């Protein structure tokens, strides 16, 4: 997504662009696939940053649309119904109206009202979007900010799941961006899923004559005197370019360089990955009394966001029901989806041979569904009904994420070390995408745009 966005900006201003894609579909983490005639999105639970009435025109999503000259209306975005953060018996609900969320905080944590206001101010005063932002631990800031630790833990949950590359923490800049993106702006989804965003990007690139080479990976980037001189593909084809933008990740790009200045460090490797199981079921979610869009849950008072010891950990996770976005089309669907996402261990999945891999997927599907039903209204007593209504289940694992994103360890959000500016150790090689540290679909687009603008287009 960031690569396509960068390519589009460059082509728009007359640069000769070539897009190289390892996979046979575009999009990276924000991609799609088909099973039994049904289309599934890989990453997309929600497009964040929806310009809700309370956030006005400041939404980065509108910025991205403008820069890419894609009319915002053409995305056909529909807003969430209502979502929830649940920690045991404590629930904070939110929709795209910030005042509703604030009210939920104040009702659930009445003693924290003033402290929460101060915390909002602290975020306002913090220049999260600057390139040279200090690296601060959100967990320690939250611990200091509130008397009741649970409030901080509950805020960390959706923000981590929607964009933290670090385990058990987020840097405060990323947290602030995510907080704005999820709560101050809002969640929405294109009527036709992620392709509503990918298709116009690709179509525009095609119209401008930009060549895309699919299903062929970059094997190495040759360098000489600190400059990238040649790209070598898996099939031994070679390309040269004045500028190269790599969207395959920080560590992953360094590994492509023939002359590395520094070997990749362990602390540069992302560890957090997920498993997601999708149940396609007959009818509408409201047939089961489920009217919420996204539910972030945690079994404990303390939120753990880490690589589990076992293949998967269902004690915390995210449930998403795409048919609960307020798309009029969803009123008349005859089948719907329940998506359940839990932390997962890449190494465990990567070490499994095919029959064991499939068996472990099936085992996890059952465990994940069982747990998710505990967090859905009357989920437990409807277990059999839901099982009877289920038409198809599909599950992707950290191994699948690696296939789509090329991230080492199948790390959902890449390396915990971010390069905002997109600089690499090589002069004419820039990084875009996840490892720039901008978040989600909108972050991917804006990251690619920023690198194209600041590194290549902006006259010296």
């Amino acid at each position, binding site marked *: 997504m960031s690569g396509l966005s960068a390519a589009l900006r460059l082509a728009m*201003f*007359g640069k000769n662009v070539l897009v190289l894609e390892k996979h046979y579909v575009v999009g990276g983490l924000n991609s799609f696939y088909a099973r039994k005639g049904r289309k599934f999105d890989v990453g997309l639970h929600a497009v964040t940053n929806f310009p809700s009435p309370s956030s006005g*025109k400041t939404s980065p999503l*509108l*910025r991205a649309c*403008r*820069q890419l*000259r894609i*009319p*915002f209306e053409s995305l056909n975005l529909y807003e969430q119904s209502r979502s929830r953060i649940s920690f045991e018996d404590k629930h904070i609900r939110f929709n795209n109206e910030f005042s509703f969320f604030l009210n939920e905080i104040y009702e659930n944590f009445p003693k924290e009202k003033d402290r929460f206001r101060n915390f909002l101010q602290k975020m306002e005063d913090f220049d999260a979007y600057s390139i040279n932002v200090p690296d601060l631990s959100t967990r320690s800031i939250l611990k200091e900010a509130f008397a009741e630790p649970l409030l901080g833990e509950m805020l960390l949950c959706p923000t981590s799941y929607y964009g933290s590359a670090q385990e058990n923490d987020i840097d405060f800049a990323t947290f602030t961006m995510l907080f704005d993106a999820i709560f101050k702006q809002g969640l929405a989804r294109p009527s036709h899923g992620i392709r509503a965003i990918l298709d116009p990007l690709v179509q525009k690139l095609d119209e401008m004559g930009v060549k895309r080479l699919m299903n062929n990976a970059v094997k190495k980037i040759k360098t000489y005197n600190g400059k990238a001189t040649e790209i070598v593909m898996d099939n031994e084809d070679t390309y040269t370019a004045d500028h190269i933008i790599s969207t395959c990740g920080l560590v992953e790009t360094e590994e492509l360089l023939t002359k590395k200045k520094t070997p990749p460090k362990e602390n540069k490797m992302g560890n957090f990955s997920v498993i997601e199981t999708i149940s396609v079921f007959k009818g509408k979610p409201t047939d089961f009394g489920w009217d919420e869009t996204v539910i972030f849950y945690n079994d404990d008072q303390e939120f753990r966001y880490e690589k589990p010891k076992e293949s998967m950990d269902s004690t915390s996770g995210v449930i998403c029901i795409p048919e609960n976005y307020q798309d009029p089309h969803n009123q008349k669907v005859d089948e719907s989806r329940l998506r359940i996402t839990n932390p997962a261990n890449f190494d465990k999945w990567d070490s499994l041979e095919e029959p064991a891999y499939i068996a472990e997927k099936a085992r996890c599907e059952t465990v994940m569904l069982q747990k998710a039903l505990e967090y859905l209204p009357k989920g437990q007593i409807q277990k059999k009904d839901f099982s009877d209504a289920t038409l198809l289940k599909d599950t992707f694992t950290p191994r699948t994420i690696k296939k789509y994103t090329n991230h080492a360890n199948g790390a959902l959000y890449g390396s915990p070390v971010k390069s905002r500016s997109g600089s690499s150790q090589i002069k004419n090689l820039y990084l875009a995408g996840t490892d720039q540290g901008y978040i989600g679909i909108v972050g991917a687009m804006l990251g690619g*745009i920023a690198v194209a*603008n600041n590194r290549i*287009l*902006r*006259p010296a």
Partner: protein
Amino acid sequence: MNKDKVKQIVLDIISEIAPDEDLSDVKPEIRLRDQLDLDSMDFLDIVMELRKQHGIDVPEAEYRQLESLDSCGNYLLPKFEAGAAA
């Protein structure tokens, strides 16, 4: 070429890069930023469109000359004329 034509060219570019903005009542003497929702990324696009469509270069140090339609007219007119003469 005259200043009004230059202003119209700038307005046409703005309507391309920010189709959601209402340009029917833009005051030429007031800063564009103060009456339209334009940020630095948008100004970069105006500069790049001037170069792409009209071959006019605006160095980064002189972006401020584009702050209002009037200043655009004053600053860009000689550049358009130089381009036409060349």
